[in-house]
């Protein structure tokens, strides 16, 4: 295997790793937001239930 081929493989691995880490960070933020929204919805539903 030539050095050029090896370098190209490493570049691809590096780019994919950065993309995976970036997407994982975005996902964590989105999961956090989704949890906040669902807990807010549940609590507002409970309040609505109490009023009845």
């Amino acid at each position: 295997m030539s050095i050029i081929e090896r370098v190209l493989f490493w570049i691809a691995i590096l780019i994919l790793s950065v993309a995976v880490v970036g997407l994982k960070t975005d996902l964590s933020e989105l999961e956090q937001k989704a949890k906040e929204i669902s807990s807010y919805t549940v609590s507002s539903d409970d309040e609505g239930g109490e009023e009845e």
Partner: protein
Amino acid sequence: MSPKLERIIYITIITVLSLMLISYGKKEIELQKQIPLTVDQLYKKLSNPKVSIQIIDVRPYEIPEEEEDEAEEIDYYTGAHIPGAIPFPDCDESKTPEEALEQINPYLPTVIVSKDGNPEIFKKCAEKFSVVQNLAGGITAWDEEGYPEDEGEYEPPRAGGGGGCL
């Protein structure tokens, strides 16, 4: 290490990383469906010409004459709508004007606009689009914030594309 084995290892690593990327991407799209877009976020997106976004308005297209006196402008599409929004009442093709139906693209990032951001209507419509978000508070919130609105019949854009614009 033999070159063949080395190559197999590299390809395996790249395949695993690609699969992770695809699965995270799918998960991100699913999560975005659960998080409504605020009117401020939508306004910012529409103000940016680089962002391609489609606004689908699911309110009734027009109100029958006999109900016109009681109805508010934000109750129906022709009364008031976000500039560039495409009417798609109840996400039902049979209720949609033909010229609007031609403009709907299920693969574009889409924002669903209802009267008050009703999650039930959003759920029904979300199945028809691949990347979709609900507008929190719907047209009511947009109207209250005083953002620009259009009124009247739907006019398809002259140069193709179905997105919203300001």
